[in-house]
């Protein structure tokens, strides 16, 4: 009897030891802004903060109103490359992310992609996060925190164009002579509607940032509906092999629609990646659509990364004429809360915080879309966009 009890206790202890534990993390939901359309896509970003811990796996729950939304998919952010969802009950899903190398810090955990199915116009809160077993209890949102709210227009606008058109006008703000024409290319899609839906989601991500209307209105958005073109290419540097897009193919395809710049969306399930060629174009995988504003920040607005590369800026860059990006500063101020000399008197609410990509540069705000964590540009980055698009109307 004693041996049996001992074996049971030993088995219990071993079970405790070997059962994979989903460790603690804090999650925060970012609300989309603006008015949404029935039948259109809406994406919600879940941010994660591991609070110093190094996690190989994390999970959270999300509840939504199934009479307003239809859940389509979950895509990985820049923290946990593998993300999956499972239905707990109607209107409740569990999102689990894994990172084989472990992740520590904060960033985008996942993006929930929904379709709006609400029948009547109005405004309603439609999604909240909740704790799932294995994670710490989610703190209640502080007073005054805006939960994602759905503001519906009475009726959807007419479809802007014919899907059989080669150059599909997704969102046109004016004459091509005076606008920056950004074209989306389909990388390995089989279905046009799926591709166009992802294009709309990408535009929603950009328009959900704090970029002023005056900047956003300078851009026309197009989609090339020819799915037969292969844009895939691989980086041929001495670093690890990774997917980029073929810029020569993109240049030829761009010229079919009188576009000025391009972005490729690759349909590569379970793979989160993206690349920007400064001033030329960019690409993202379907699982990383939330990174579109970040990549366009590089390719169109010439912004630098604000997360830590762990190394200083090489003098070779400066020697080749690449001055520091507008959102980074070489000179520091007296304190971190005082604007760097580069931005002094130009912006309010900016500081001079160590590390702006490179360890010897300074950034203006703790978080920004060019860093990881939030989806807004900081004031110098917005100015970078304005300067880049100054020749457009």
């Amino acid at each position: 009897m004693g041996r049996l009890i001992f074996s049971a206790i030993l088995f219990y202890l071993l079970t405790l030891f070997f059962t994979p534990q989903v460790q603690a993390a804090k999650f925060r939901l970012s609300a989309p802004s603006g008015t949404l359309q029935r039948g259109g896509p809406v994406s919600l970003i879940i941010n994660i903060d591991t609070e110093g811990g190094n996690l190989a796996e994390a999970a959270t729950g999300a509840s939504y109103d199934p009479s307003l939304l239809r859940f389509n998919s979950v895509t990985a952010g820049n923290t946990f490359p593998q993300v999956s969802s499972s239905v707990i009950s109607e209107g409740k899903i569990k999102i689990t992310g894994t990172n084989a190398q472990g992740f520590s810090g904060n960033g985008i955990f996942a993006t929930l992609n929904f379709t709006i199915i609400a029948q009547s116009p109005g405004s309603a809160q439609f999604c909240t996060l909740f704790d799932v077993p294995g994670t710490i209890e989610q703190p209640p949102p502080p007073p005054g925190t805006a939960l994602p709210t759905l503001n519906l227009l009475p009726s959807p606008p007419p479809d802007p164009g014919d899907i059989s058109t080669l150059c599909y006008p997704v969102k046109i703000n004016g004459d091509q002579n005076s606008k920056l024409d950004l074209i989306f290319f389909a990388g390995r899609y089989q279905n046009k509607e799926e591709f166009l839906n992802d294009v709309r989601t990408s535009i929603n991500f950009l328009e959900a940032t704090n970029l002023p209307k005056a900047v956003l209105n300078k851009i026309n958005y197009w989609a090339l509906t020819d799915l037969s073109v292969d844009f895939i290419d691989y980086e041929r540097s001495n670093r690890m092999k990774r997917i980029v897009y073929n810029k020569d193919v993109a240049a030829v395809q761009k010229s079919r629609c009188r576009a000025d710049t391009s972005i490729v969306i690759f349909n590569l399930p379970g793979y989160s990646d993206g690349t920007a060629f400064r001033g030329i174009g960019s690409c993202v995988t379907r699982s990383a659509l939330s990174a579109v504003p970040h990549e366009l920040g590089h390719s169109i607005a010439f912004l630098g990364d604000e997360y830590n590369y762990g190394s200083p800026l090489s003098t070779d860059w400066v020697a080749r004429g690449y001055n520091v990006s507008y959102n980074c500063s070489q000179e520091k101020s007296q304190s971190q809360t005082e604007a760097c000399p580069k931005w002094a008197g130009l912006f309010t609410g900016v500081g001079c915080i160590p590390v702006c990509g490179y360890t010897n540069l300074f950034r203006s705000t703790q978080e920004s879309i060019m860093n990881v964590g939030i989806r807004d540009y900081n004031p110098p980055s917005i100015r970078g966009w304005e300067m880049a698009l100054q020749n457009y109307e």
Partner: protein
Amino acid sequence: MNKILANKKRLLLSLLSIALVIALVKILAKPLLPPPNPHLSIQVSLNQDQAGNLSVKNLNLTEAYAPDYKLNLPNGFYEIVMSEKLGMPLFSGKFARDLVLMPYPKMINGQYLPPEILPLGEITLLLPYYREAELIIIKDEQGSDKLTINISDFSLNPVESYTKYCGNGICDTDENILSCYSDCRIILESQIKHWFNK
């Protein structure tokens, strides 16, 4: 009576003068040169060696839309100016000198990858086709000439264009709401929206 006639004459002359001035202004304000062909582009392939010297590999006429090159690159660019024989600029813009790769924010062995400059040995440009274009001048960031191309040194074989453009989604400069409703209605709608939002 004579005074009234003289006044009438003076009024008529004044009106004629005003009409003449308006006509002159209209003639002068009108572009002296026709707009570029919307469906043809001058394709220029440039070689760039490691020291940054440029040379022409190829120049020909092709059936394609040209981008506007109006993105305001702050550094790492070349400036391009196309002009006619009297030196009047027809077109100008900027293009990237290098291929600067900004990697996705993904940790590799606990580190984020920094950007890198990849060699851009060949640069292909699609420039608007003006029949009157004579020179293409490429300058560096400091405004010094890097390369001057005399277009007449190359034989621009005429392109027999059979492509049907109306219906491709693009409202071309030679199309309008009447000649190609399917392509141009989007532009008209955006303009109406713009005026209502004003």
